[in-house]
Protein backbone atom coordinates (compact mmCIF):
# COMPACT_ATOMS: atom_id res chain seq x y z
CA UNK A 1 0.00 0.00 0.00
CA UNK A 2 1.23 3.50 -0.66
CA UNK A 3 1.31 6.19 1.98
CA UNK A 4 -1.95 7.77 0.89
CA UNK A 5 -3.89 4.52 1.15
CA UNK A 6 -2.37 3.77 4.56
CA UNK A 7 -3.35 7.21 5.79
CA UNK A 8 -6.90 6.80 4.50
CA UNK A 9 -7.19 3.44 6.21
CA UNK A 10 -6.05 4.92 9.50
CA UNK A 11 -8.46 7.84 9.20
CA UNK A 12 -11.33 5.47 8.37
CA UNK A 13 -10.58 3.44 11.48
CA UNK A 14 -9.65 6.15 13.99
CA UNK A 15 -11.23 9.34 12.64
CA UNK A 16 -10.45 12.31 14.86
CA UNK A 17 -7.49 10.62 16.52
CA UNK A 18 -5.47 10.96 13.31
CA UNK A 19 -4.84 14.66 13.75
CA UNK A 20 -2.84 15.48 10.64
CA UNK A 21 -0.63 14.19 7.88
CA UNK A 22 2.58 14.85 6.01
CA UNK A 23 2.20 12.69 2.95
CA UNK A 24 4.36 14.94 0.78
CA UNK A 25 7.39 14.54 3.07
CA UNK A 26 10.39 12.41 2.09
CA UNK A 27 9.20 9.90 4.69
CA UNK A 28 5.38 10.25 4.73
CA UNK A 29 3.72 10.32 8.12
CA UNK A 30 0.41 10.68 9.93
CA UNK A 31 0.02 12.64 13.15
CA UNK A 32 -1.64 10.66 15.93
CA UNK A 33 -3.23 12.00 19.11
CA UNK A 34 -0.96 11.13 22.08
CA UNK A 35 -3.49 9.07 24.03
CA UNK A 36 -4.32 6.92 20.99
CA UNK A 37 -0.80 5.92 19.96
CA UNK A 38 -0.85 2.49 21.61
CA UNK A 39 -4.06 1.37 19.91
CA UNK A 40 -3.05 2.86 16.57
CA UNK A 41 0.27 1.03 16.85
CA UNK A 42 -1.47 -2.23 17.71
CA UNK A 43 -3.83 -1.77 14.76
CA UNK A 44 -0.92 -1.02 12.42
CA UNK A 45 0.74 -4.24 13.46
CA UNK A 46 -2.28 -6.55 13.56
CA UNK A 47 -4.22 -5.39 10.50
CA UNK A 48 -3.37 -7.83 7.69
CA UNK A 49 -3.34 -5.15 5.01
CA UNK A 50 -0.92 -2.93 6.97
CA UNK A 51 1.06 -5.61 8.86
CA UNK A 52 3.69 -3.23 10.22
CA UNK A 53 5.54 -5.89 12.16
CA UNK A 54 8.76 -3.91 12.47
CA UNK A 55 9.48 -0.66 14.26
CA UNK A 56 12.54 0.65 12.44
CA UNK A 57 13.17 3.69 14.55
CA UNK A 58 11.64 5.69 17.34
CA UNK A 59 12.98 9.19 17.72
CA UNK A 60 12.13 12.23 19.75
CA UNK A 61 12.66 15.79 18.53
CA UNK A 62 12.38 19.00 20.50
CA UNK A 63 10.86 22.11 18.86
CA UNK A 64 10.91 24.92 21.44
CA UNK A 65 10.62 27.69 18.84
CA UNK A 66 7.47 26.41 17.17
CA UNK A 67 4.16 27.93 18.11
CA UNK A 68 3.06 26.35 20.39
CA UNK A 69 6.37 24.85 21.57
CA UNK A 70 6.25 21.09 21.20
CA UNK A 71 8.03 17.78 21.28
CA UNK A 72 7.62 15.14 18.65
CA UNK A 73 7.98 11.41 18.80
CA UNK A 74 8.32 9.77 15.40
CA UNK A 75 7.72 6.06 14.82
CA UNK A 76 9.11 4.73 11.56
CA UNK A 77 7.39 1.52 10.63
CA UNK A 78 8.19 -1.19 8.14
CA UNK A 79 6.32 -4.25 7.06
CA UNK A 80 8.29 -7.39 6.33
CA UNK A 81 5.11 -8.82 4.80
CA UNK A 82 4.27 -6.08 2.30
CA UNK A 83 7.64 -4.25 2.28
CA UNK A 84 6.05 -0.83 2.71
CA UNK A 85 7.02 1.92 5.13
CA UNK A 86 5.10 4.58 6.97
CA UNK A 87 5.67 6.87 9.92
CA UNK A 88 3.51 7.91 12.83
CA UNK A 89 4.10 11.11 14.73
CA UNK A 90 2.88 12.26 18.09
CA UNK A 91 3.01 15.92 19.05
CA UNK A 92 3.39 16.61 22.76
CA UNK A 93 3.52 19.74 24.90
CA UNK A 94 7.01 20.65 26.08
CA UNK A 95 5.86 20.77 29.71
CA UNK A 96 5.70 17.23 31.10
CA UNK A 97 5.52 15.34 27.81
CA UNK A 98 3.99 11.91 28.30
CA UNK A 99 2.36 9.29 26.10
CA UNK A 100 1.52 5.57 26.33
CA UNK A 101 4.22 3.02 25.66
CA UNK A 102 4.21 0.76 22.60
CA UNK A 103 6.64 -1.84 23.96
CA UNK A 104 3.81 -4.37 24.07
CA UNK A 105 3.48 -4.04 20.29
CA UNK A 106 7.13 -4.05 19.21
CA UNK A 107 9.70 -5.42 21.63
CA UNK A 108 12.43 -3.10 20.43
CA UNK A 109 10.41 -0.08 21.56
CA UNK A 110 11.48 -0.86 25.12
CA UNK A 111 15.02 0.34 24.51
CA UNK A 112 14.11 3.08 22.06
CA UNK A 113 11.70 4.56 24.59
CA UNK A 114 14.27 4.38 27.34
CA UNK A 115 16.68 6.26 25.12
CA UNK A 116 14.04 8.86 24.29
CA UNK A 117 13.28 9.29 27.99
CA UNK A 118 16.97 9.51 28.81
CA UNK A 119 17.92 12.13 26.24
CA UNK A 120 14.71 14.13 25.90
CA UNK A 121 12.76 13.50 29.08
CA UNK A 122 9.66 12.16 27.37
CA UNK A 123 7.79 9.84 29.74
CA UNK A 124 6.29 6.65 28.35
CA UNK A 125 3.35 5.70 30.54
CA UNK A 126 3.09 2.02 31.40
CA UNK A 127 6.68 1.24 30.39
CA UNK A 128 7.98 -1.79 32.31
CA UNK A 129 11.46 -0.46 33.01
CA UNK A 130 11.78 3.26 32.32
CA UNK A 131 15.38 3.94 33.42
CA UNK A 132 18.16 5.94 31.86
CA UNK A 133 19.99 3.87 29.29
CA UNK A 134 22.93 5.81 27.85
CA UNK A 135 23.67 8.37 30.53
CA UNK A 136 24.61 7.58 34.14
CA UNK A 137 21.72 6.99 36.55
CA UNK A 138 22.51 10.12 38.54
CA UNK A 139 22.66 12.42 35.54
CA UNK A 140 20.42 15.46 35.80
CA UNK A 141 18.52 16.84 32.86
CA UNK A 142 17.98 15.72 29.29
CA UNK A 143 20.73 16.83 26.91
CA UNK A 144 18.94 16.61 23.59
CA UNK A 145 16.47 19.29 24.63
CA UNK A 146 17.32 22.44 22.76
CA UNK A 147 17.52 24.56 25.92
CA UNK A 148 20.09 22.22 27.49
CA UNK A 149 23.01 23.88 29.23
CA UNK A 150 26.10 21.81 29.97
CA UNK A 151 26.60 21.56 33.72
CA UNK A 152 29.78 23.05 35.06
CA UNK A 153 30.51 20.18 37.42
CA UNK A 154 29.82 16.47 37.42
CA UNK A 155 30.92 14.66 40.58
CA UNK A 156 33.25 17.54 41.36
CA UNK A 157 34.91 17.46 37.94
CA UNK A 158 34.73 20.25 35.45
CA UNK A 159 32.57 19.02 32.62
CA UNK A 160 33.01 22.00 30.40
CA UNK A 161 35.37 24.92 30.91
CA UNK A 162 33.34 28.08 30.43
CA UNK A 163 34.64 31.15 28.68
CA UNK A 164 35.35 32.76 32.07
CA UNK A 165 37.21 29.68 33.23
CA UNK A 166 39.33 29.67 30.09
CA UNK A 167 40.14 33.35 30.59
CA UNK A 168 41.01 32.85 34.24
CA UNK A 169 43.17 29.87 33.33
CA UNK A 170 44.96 31.79 30.60
CA UNK A 171 45.60 34.57 33.12
CA UNK A 172 47.58 32.03 35.11
CA UNK A 173 45.05 31.13 37.80
CA UNK A 174 44.81 27.51 38.87
CA UNK A 175 41.18 26.38 38.71
CA UNK A 176 39.38 23.12 39.23
CA UNK A 177 39.41 20.55 42.00
CA UNK A 178 40.84 17.11 42.54
CA UNK A 179 43.50 15.45 40.45
CA UNK A 180 42.05 16.79 37.21
CA UNK A 181 43.14 20.37 37.59
CA UNK A 182 42.91 22.42 34.47
CA UNK A 183 46.33 24.00 34.25
CA UNK A 184 46.85 26.72 31.69
CA UNK A 185 48.80 25.74 28.59
CA UNK A 186 52.30 27.14 28.45
CA UNK A 187 52.10 29.25 25.35
CA UNK A 188 55.78 30.16 25.23
CA UNK A 189 56.87 26.56 24.61
CA UNK A 190 54.73 26.06 21.58
CA UNK A 191 56.87 28.17 19.36
Amino acid at each position, binding site marked *: MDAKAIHEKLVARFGEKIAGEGLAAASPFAVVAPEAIA*EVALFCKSDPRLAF*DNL*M*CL*SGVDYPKENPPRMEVAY*HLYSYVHLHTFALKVLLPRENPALPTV*EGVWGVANWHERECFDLLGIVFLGHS*DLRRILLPDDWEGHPLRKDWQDPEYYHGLHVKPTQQMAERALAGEKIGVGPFDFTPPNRSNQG
Partner: protein
Amino acid sequence: MATPEPVVNEWDRQDRQDLDTDEMVLNMGPQHPATHGVLRLELRTDGEVVKAARPHIGYLHRCFEKHAENVDYPGVLPYADRMDYCAAMGNTLGFALAVEKLHNLQVSPYVATLRIVMAELQRIASHAVAVGTYTMDIGAFTPFLHLLRDREKILDLFEWTCGARLLYNYNWIGGVSHDIPEGFVRATRDLLREFDSVTFPELLDLIIHNRIFVKRLASVGVCSKELAISHDLTGPNLRGSGVPRDLRKDEPYLGYETYDFDVCVGQGQYGPLGSCFDRNWVRVVEMRESSKILHQALDRLEKMERTPVQEKCPKRVKPPKGEAYVRSEAPRGQLGYYVVSDGNINPYRVKVKSPCFTAMSVFHHLARGMMIADIIALIGSLDIVLGEIDR
Protein backbone atom coordinates in the same frame (compact mmCIF):
# COMPACT_ATOMS: atom_id res chain seq x y z
CA MET B 1 -10.84 -0.84 22.89
CA ALA B 2 -7.77 -2.85 22.00
CA THR B 3 -4.64 -1.97 23.86
CA PRO B 4 -1.36 -3.87 23.87
CA GLU B 5 -0.70 -6.21 26.76
CA PRO B 6 1.63 -4.85 29.43
CA VAL B 7 5.17 -6.19 29.23
CA VAL B 8 6.47 -8.13 32.22
CA ASN B 9 9.77 -6.96 33.60
CA GLU B 10 11.48 -10.28 34.27
CA TRP B 11 14.30 -8.78 36.25
CA ASP B 12 12.11 -7.14 38.88
CA ARG B 13 9.52 -9.90 39.21
CA GLN B 14 8.91 -10.42 42.90
CA ASP B 15 7.19 -13.82 42.75
CA ARG B 16 10.19 -15.35 41.04
CA GLN B 17 12.51 -13.89 43.64
CA ASP B 18 10.45 -15.42 46.44
CA LEU B 19 10.20 -18.88 44.94
CA ASP B 20 13.75 -19.60 43.89
CA THR B 21 16.59 -20.16 46.28
CA ASP B 22 20.33 -19.68 46.17
CA GLU B 23 20.33 -17.09 43.48
CA MET B 24 23.39 -15.05 42.82
CA VAL B 25 23.71 -11.83 40.90
CA LEU B 26 26.80 -12.06 38.74
CA ASN B 27 28.35 -9.02 37.17
CA MET B 28 30.03 -9.51 33.81
CA GLY B 29 31.93 -6.64 32.28
CA PRO B 30 32.40 -3.81 31.42
CA GLN B 31 36.03 -4.94 31.24
CA HIS B 32 35.26 -8.52 30.28
CA PRO B 33 37.20 -9.33 27.09
CA ALA B 34 34.34 -11.33 25.56
CA THR B 35 31.81 -8.51 25.77
CA HIS B 36 33.35 -6.90 22.67
CA GLY B 37 33.97 -3.56 24.25
CA VAL B 38 32.46 -2.05 27.35
CA LEU B 39 29.22 -3.90 27.79
CA ARG B 40 28.16 -4.72 31.33
CA LEU B 41 25.82 -7.58 32.03
CA GLU B 42 24.01 -8.29 35.24
CA LEU B 43 23.07 -11.94 35.38
CA ARG B 44 20.79 -13.45 37.97
CA THR B 45 22.06 -16.97 38.16
CA ASP B 46 20.93 -20.19 39.74
CA GLY B 47 24.05 -22.31 39.69
CA GLU B 48 25.26 -22.20 36.10
CA VAL B 49 21.88 -21.25 34.68
CA VAL B 50 20.95 -17.65 33.95
CA LYS B 51 17.49 -16.84 35.29
CA ALA B 52 17.35 -13.26 34.09
CA ALA B 53 19.79 -10.94 32.44
CA ARG B 54 20.04 -7.20 32.31
CA PRO B 55 22.48 -5.47 29.97
CA HIS B 56 23.82 -2.06 30.92
CA ILE B 57 25.08 0.08 28.10
CA GLY B 58 26.31 3.63 27.82
CA TYR B 59 29.93 3.24 28.90
CA LEU B 60 31.06 4.42 25.48
CA HIS B 61 28.47 7.14 25.01
CA ARG B 62 30.09 10.02 23.14
CA CYS B 63 27.01 12.16 22.47
CA PHE B 64 27.02 11.62 18.71
CA GLU B 65 23.53 13.02 18.32
CA LYS B 66 24.30 16.09 20.39
CA HIS B 67 27.57 16.73 18.56
CA ALA B 68 25.79 16.38 15.23
CA GLU B 69 23.49 19.27 16.13
CA ASN B 70 26.47 21.52 16.79
CA VAL B 71 28.54 20.98 13.64
CA ASP B 72 27.71 21.40 9.97
CA TYR B 73 26.71 18.47 7.77
CA PRO B 74 30.18 17.54 6.45
CA GLY B 75 31.42 17.84 10.04
CA VAL B 76 29.12 15.03 11.14
CA LEU B 77 30.84 12.49 8.89
CA PRO B 78 33.98 11.96 11.02
CA TYR B 79 31.78 11.49 14.07
CA ALA B 80 29.69 8.98 12.15
CA ASP B 81 32.89 7.10 11.31
CA ARG B 82 33.54 6.63 14.98
CA MET B 83 30.28 4.90 15.80
CA ASP B 84 30.89 1.49 14.31
CA TYR B 85 34.67 1.59 14.17
CA CYS B 86 34.85 -1.88 12.60
CA ALA B 87 32.84 -0.77 9.58
CA ALA B 88 33.30 2.96 9.24
CA MET B 89 32.58 3.04 5.49
CA GLY B 90 29.01 1.93 6.07
CA ASN B 91 28.34 4.61 8.68
CA THR B 92 29.38 7.56 6.55
CA LEU B 93 27.64 6.05 3.53
CA GLY B 94 24.37 5.98 5.45
CA PHE B 95 24.66 9.57 6.56
CA ALA B 96 25.70 10.76 3.10
CA LEU B 97 22.70 8.98 1.56
CA ALA B 98 20.35 10.60 4.07
CA VAL B 99 21.62 14.12 3.45
CA GLU B 100 21.65 13.53 -0.30
CA LYS B 101 18.01 12.54 -0.09
CA LEU B 102 17.19 15.78 1.76
CA HIS B 103 19.29 17.72 -0.72
CA ASN B 104 17.89 15.83 -3.71
CA LEU B 105 21.38 15.01 -4.97
CA GLN B 106 22.26 12.16 -7.31
CA VAL B 107 25.84 10.97 -7.40
CA SER B 108 27.35 9.93 -10.73
CA PRO B 109 27.44 6.22 -11.64
CA TYR B 110 31.21 6.22 -11.22
CA VAL B 111 30.99 7.52 -7.64
CA ALA B 112 28.16 5.08 -6.87
CA THR B 113 30.34 2.20 -8.08
CA LEU B 114 33.27 3.42 -5.99
CA ARG B 115 31.00 3.54 -2.96
CA ILE B 116 29.81 0.02 -3.60
CA VAL B 117 33.38 -1.24 -3.95
CA MET B 118 34.34 0.34 -0.63
CA ALA B 119 31.16 -0.78 1.14
CA GLU B 120 31.59 -4.38 0.08
CA LEU B 121 35.31 -4.47 0.89
CA GLN B 122 34.33 -3.10 4.29
CA ARG B 123 31.70 -5.79 4.66
CA ILE B 124 34.29 -8.50 4.11
CA ALA B 125 36.69 -6.83 6.55
CA SER B 126 33.98 -6.36 9.15
CA HIS B 127 32.72 -9.93 8.92
CA ALA B 128 36.31 -11.15 9.16
CA VAL B 129 36.63 -9.38 12.50
CA ALA B 130 33.23 -10.62 13.62
CA VAL B 131 33.90 -14.27 12.84
CA GLY B 132 37.51 -14.07 13.98
CA THR B 133 36.80 -12.60 17.38
CA TYR B 134 33.88 -14.97 17.73
CA THR B 135 36.05 -18.03 17.34
CA MET B 136 38.40 -16.54 19.88
CA ASP B 137 35.50 -16.02 22.29
CA ILE B 138 34.62 -19.67 22.18
CA GLY B 139 38.17 -20.85 22.46
CA ALA B 140 39.93 -21.06 19.09
CA PHE B 141 42.76 -18.62 18.72
CA THR B 142 44.26 -19.43 15.31
CA PRO B 143 41.32 -18.47 13.07
CA PHE B 144 41.38 -15.02 14.61
CA LEU B 145 44.94 -14.50 13.42
CA HIS B 146 44.15 -15.83 9.96
CA LEU B 147 41.19 -13.56 9.55
CA LEU B 148 42.90 -10.46 10.88
CA ARG B 149 45.73 -11.15 8.44
CA ASP B 150 43.24 -11.13 5.58
CA ARG B 151 41.44 -8.07 6.87
CA GLU B 152 44.78 -6.30 6.98
CA LYS B 153 45.06 -6.58 3.20
CA ILE B 154 41.74 -4.83 2.79
CA LEU B 155 42.79 -2.10 5.17
CA ASP B 156 45.91 -1.66 3.05
CA LEU B 157 43.68 -0.99 0.06
CA PHE B 158 41.74 1.60 2.04
CA GLU B 159 44.92 3.23 3.20
CA TRP B 160 46.18 3.35 -0.35
CA THR B 161 42.97 5.04 -1.46
CA CYS B 162 42.26 7.57 1.26
CA GLY B 163 45.14 7.44 3.70
CA ALA B 164 43.30 6.01 6.66
CA ARG B 165 43.15 2.46 7.89
CA LEU B 166 40.24 2.50 10.31
CA LEU B 167 38.28 5.76 10.24
CA TYR B 168 38.17 6.91 6.65
CA ASN B 169 35.87 9.92 6.28
CA TYR B 170 35.62 8.62 2.73
CA ASN B 171 31.98 9.00 1.72
CA TRP B 172 31.26 12.68 1.43
CA ILE B 173 27.94 14.32 0.79
CA GLY B 174 27.61 14.21 -2.99
CA GLY B 175 30.83 12.34 -3.65
CA VAL B 176 33.81 10.61 -2.11
CA SER B 177 37.01 12.07 -0.77
CA HIS B 178 39.49 10.42 -3.12
CA ASP B 179 39.45 8.67 -6.45
CA ILE B 180 41.02 5.21 -6.47
CA PRO B 181 44.74 5.19 -7.25
CA GLU B 182 46.27 3.71 -10.37
CA GLY B 183 46.46 -0.07 -10.05
CA PHE B 184 43.73 -0.33 -7.42
CA VAL B 185 41.51 -2.53 -9.55
CA ARG B 186 44.29 -5.01 -10.23
CA ALA B 187 45.33 -5.15 -6.59
CA THR B 188 41.74 -5.71 -5.49
CA ARG B 189 41.36 -8.46 -8.07
CA ASP B 190 44.46 -10.17 -6.69
CA LEU B 191 43.05 -9.93 -3.20
CA LEU B 192 39.70 -11.33 -4.26
CA ARG B 193 41.34 -14.17 -6.17
CA GLU B 194 43.16 -15.16 -3.04
CA PHE B 195 40.01 -14.75 -0.99
CA ASP B 196 37.91 -16.92 -3.30
CA SER B 197 40.43 -19.68 -3.80
CA VAL B 198 42.21 -19.85 -0.44
CA THR B 199 40.73 -17.83 2.39
CA PHE B 200 37.09 -18.67 1.94
CA PRO B 201 37.39 -22.45 1.52
CA GLU B 202 39.89 -22.47 4.35
CA LEU B 203 37.47 -20.56 6.55
CA LEU B 204 34.70 -23.04 5.86
CA ASP B 205 36.93 -26.06 6.45
CA LEU B 206 38.80 -24.73 9.44
CA ILE B 207 35.96 -23.20 11.40
CA ILE B 208 32.45 -23.22 10.08
CA HIS B 209 32.01 -26.90 9.30
CA ASN B 210 34.40 -27.92 12.00
CA ARG B 211 32.74 -30.54 14.18
CA ILE B 212 33.66 -28.82 17.43
CA PHE B 213 32.38 -25.45 16.24
CA VAL B 214 29.11 -26.92 15.03
CA LYS B 215 28.49 -28.95 18.17
CA ARG B 216 29.22 -25.97 20.34
CA LEU B 217 26.82 -23.59 18.62
CA ALA B 218 24.16 -25.31 16.58
CA SER B 219 21.50 -25.27 19.29
CA VAL B 220 22.60 -22.26 21.34
CA GLY B 221 20.87 -18.87 21.39
CA VAL B 222 17.97 -19.73 19.12
CA CYS B 223 16.07 -16.63 18.05
CA SER B 224 12.72 -17.17 16.36
CA LYS B 225 11.63 -15.25 13.30
CA GLU B 226 8.90 -13.37 15.19
CA LEU B 227 11.19 -12.36 18.03
CA ALA B 228 13.82 -11.21 15.55
CA ILE B 229 11.37 -9.00 13.68
CA SER B 230 9.71 -7.64 16.80
CA HIS B 231 13.08 -6.71 18.27
CA ASP B 232 14.25 -5.30 14.96
CA LEU B 233 17.18 -7.61 14.44
CA THR B 234 18.57 -6.81 11.02
CA GLY B 235 21.30 -7.87 8.67
CA PRO B 236 22.97 -11.23 9.28
CA ASN B 237 21.16 -11.63 12.62
CA LEU B 238 17.77 -11.45 10.93
CA ARG B 239 18.79 -13.59 8.00
CA GLY B 240 20.23 -16.09 10.42
CA SER B 241 16.69 -16.50 11.76
CA GLY B 242 15.48 -17.38 8.30
CA VAL B 243 14.03 -14.09 7.06
CA PRO B 244 15.32 -13.49 3.53
CA ARG B 245 15.41 -9.71 3.73
CA ASP B 246 18.27 -7.56 2.57
CA LEU B 247 17.94 -3.85 1.86
CA ARG B 248 20.28 -4.14 -1.08
CA LYS B 249 17.54 -6.20 -2.74
CA ASP B 250 14.37 -4.76 -1.18
CA GLU B 251 15.12 -1.05 -1.35
CA PRO B 252 18.15 -0.84 -3.60
CA TYR B 253 20.34 2.22 -3.37
CA LEU B 254 23.45 3.16 -5.41
CA GLY B 255 22.30 0.76 -8.12
CA TYR B 256 22.59 -2.47 -6.16
CA GLU B 257 19.67 -3.80 -8.19
CA THR B 258 21.94 -4.10 -11.23
CA TYR B 259 24.32 -6.51 -9.49
CA ASP B 260 23.88 -10.22 -9.43
CA PHE B 261 24.13 -11.66 -5.93
CA ASP B 262 22.14 -13.83 -3.57
CA VAL B 263 20.67 -13.04 -0.18
CA CYS B 264 22.15 -15.48 2.30
CA VAL B 265 19.62 -16.97 4.68
CA GLY B 266 20.23 -19.30 7.58
CA GLN B 267 19.43 -22.92 6.76
CA GLY B 268 19.44 -24.46 10.20
CA GLN B 269 21.44 -27.33 8.71
CA TYR B 270 22.84 -28.55 12.02
CA GLY B 271 20.12 -27.61 14.49
CA PRO B 272 17.17 -25.28 15.06
CA LEU B 273 17.00 -22.28 12.74
CA GLY B 274 18.19 -19.00 14.21
CA SER B 275 21.00 -20.36 16.37
CA CYS B 276 24.40 -18.80 16.95
CA PHE B 277 25.73 -21.09 14.26
CA ASP B 278 23.28 -19.82 11.67
CA ARG B 279 24.09 -16.19 12.34
CA ASN B 280 27.76 -16.88 11.86
CA TRP B 281 27.26 -19.05 8.84
CA VAL B 282 25.28 -16.23 7.19
CA ARG B 283 28.14 -13.85 7.88
CA VAL B 284 30.65 -16.15 6.26
CA VAL B 285 28.69 -16.90 3.11
CA GLU B 286 27.85 -13.21 2.84
CA MET B 287 31.54 -12.56 2.43
CA ARG B 288 31.45 -14.67 -0.71
CA GLU B 289 28.46 -12.73 -2.04
CA SER B 290 30.32 -9.48 -1.38
CA SER B 291 33.20 -10.87 -3.37
CA LYS B 292 30.77 -11.58 -6.22
CA ILE B 293 29.51 -7.99 -6.15
CA LEU B 294 33.07 -6.72 -6.06
CA HIS B 295 34.06 -8.67 -9.16
CA GLN B 296 31.19 -7.11 -11.10
CA ALA B 297 31.85 -3.63 -9.73
CA LEU B 298 35.54 -3.82 -10.65
CA ASP B 299 34.66 -4.88 -14.20
CA ARG B 300 32.44 -1.84 -14.48
CA LEU B 301 35.03 0.48 -13.00
CA GLU B 302 37.48 -0.54 -15.69
CA LYS B 303 35.07 0.16 -18.52
CA MET B 304 33.47 3.22 -16.98
CA GLU B 305 34.36 6.76 -17.81
CA ARG B 306 36.08 8.36 -14.85
CA THR B 307 34.33 11.47 -13.62
CA PRO B 308 35.73 13.78 -10.92
CA VAL B 309 34.65 12.27 -7.63
CA GLN B 310 33.74 15.56 -6.00
CA GLU B 311 31.97 17.32 -8.86
CA LYS B 312 28.55 16.91 -7.22
CA CYS B 313 29.67 17.93 -3.74
CA PRO B 314 27.80 21.12 -2.83
CA LYS B 315 30.00 24.01 -1.71
CA ARG B 316 27.68 24.63 1.18
CA VAL B 317 25.64 21.73 2.39
CA LYS B 318 22.38 23.40 3.32
CA PRO B 319 19.44 21.09 2.67
CA PRO B 320 15.98 22.64 2.47
CA LYS B 321 13.66 22.35 5.44
CA GLY B 322 12.43 18.81 5.81
CA GLU B 323 13.17 15.44 7.26
CA ALA B 324 13.99 11.98 6.03
CA TYR B 325 14.54 8.56 7.46
CA VAL B 326 17.05 6.77 5.27
CA ARG B 327 18.47 3.34 5.92
CA SER B 328 21.18 1.32 4.30
CA GLU B 329 22.55 -2.17 4.72
CA ALA B 330 25.66 -1.78 6.85
CA PRO B 331 27.69 -4.92 7.65
CA ARG B 332 25.92 -5.29 10.99
CA GLY B 333 22.42 -4.67 9.68
CA GLN B 334 20.18 -1.80 8.78
CA LEU B 335 21.68 1.47 9.78
CA GLY B 336 19.05 4.19 9.77
CA TYR B 337 19.51 7.94 9.96
CA TYR B 338 16.60 10.20 10.82
CA VAL B 339 17.80 13.64 9.77
CA VAL B 340 15.71 16.75 10.40
CA SER B 341 16.77 19.92 8.63
CA ASP B 342 15.50 23.40 9.46
CA GLY B 343 17.24 24.92 6.45
CA ASN B 344 20.41 25.74 8.35
CA ILE B 345 23.96 24.57 7.83
CA ASN B 346 23.73 22.43 10.99
CA PRO B 347 21.37 19.48 11.16
CA TYR B 348 18.47 20.22 13.49
CA ARG B 349 18.36 16.65 14.73
CA VAL B 350 20.13 13.45 13.80
CA LYS B 351 18.91 10.20 15.23
CA VAL B 352 20.73 6.99 14.49
CA LYS B 353 19.01 3.65 14.49
CA SER B 354 21.94 1.42 15.17
CA PRO B 355 21.61 -2.26 14.27
CA CYS B 356 23.74 -3.26 17.27
CA PHE B 357 21.51 -1.31 19.65
CA THR B 358 18.42 -3.17 18.53
CA ALA B 359 20.26 -6.49 18.44
CA MET B 360 21.27 -5.98 22.04
CA SER B 361 17.69 -5.24 23.05
CA VAL B 362 16.75 -8.86 22.38
CA PHE B 363 19.56 -10.15 24.58
CA HIS B 364 17.58 -10.59 27.80
CA HIS B 365 15.01 -12.73 25.96
CA LEU B 366 17.61 -15.05 24.53
CA ALA B 367 19.76 -15.20 27.66
CA ARG B 368 16.99 -16.43 29.94
CA GLY B 369 17.58 -20.09 30.79
CA MET B 370 21.02 -20.24 29.22
CA MET B 371 24.25 -21.50 30.75
CA ILE B 372 26.71 -18.78 31.66
CA ALA B 373 29.29 -20.12 29.20
CA ASP B 374 26.74 -19.81 26.40
CA ILE B 375 26.21 -16.14 27.18
CA ILE B 376 29.62 -15.48 25.67
CA ALA B 377 28.67 -17.40 22.56
CA LEU B 378 25.44 -15.43 22.32
CA ILE B 379 27.01 -11.98 22.62
CA GLY B 380 29.56 -12.76 19.96
CA SER B 381 27.01 -14.19 17.58
CA LEU B 382 24.97 -10.97 17.66
CA ASP B 383 28.14 -9.21 16.46
CA ILE B 384 27.80 -6.05 18.47
CA VAL B 385 30.16 -3.12 18.42
CA LEU B 386 29.74 -1.04 21.52
CA GLY B 387 30.76 2.14 19.79
CA GLU B 388 27.60 1.90 17.78
CA ILE B 389 25.32 0.82 20.63
CA ASP B 390 26.34 3.74 22.82
CA ARG B 391 27.08 6.23 20.05
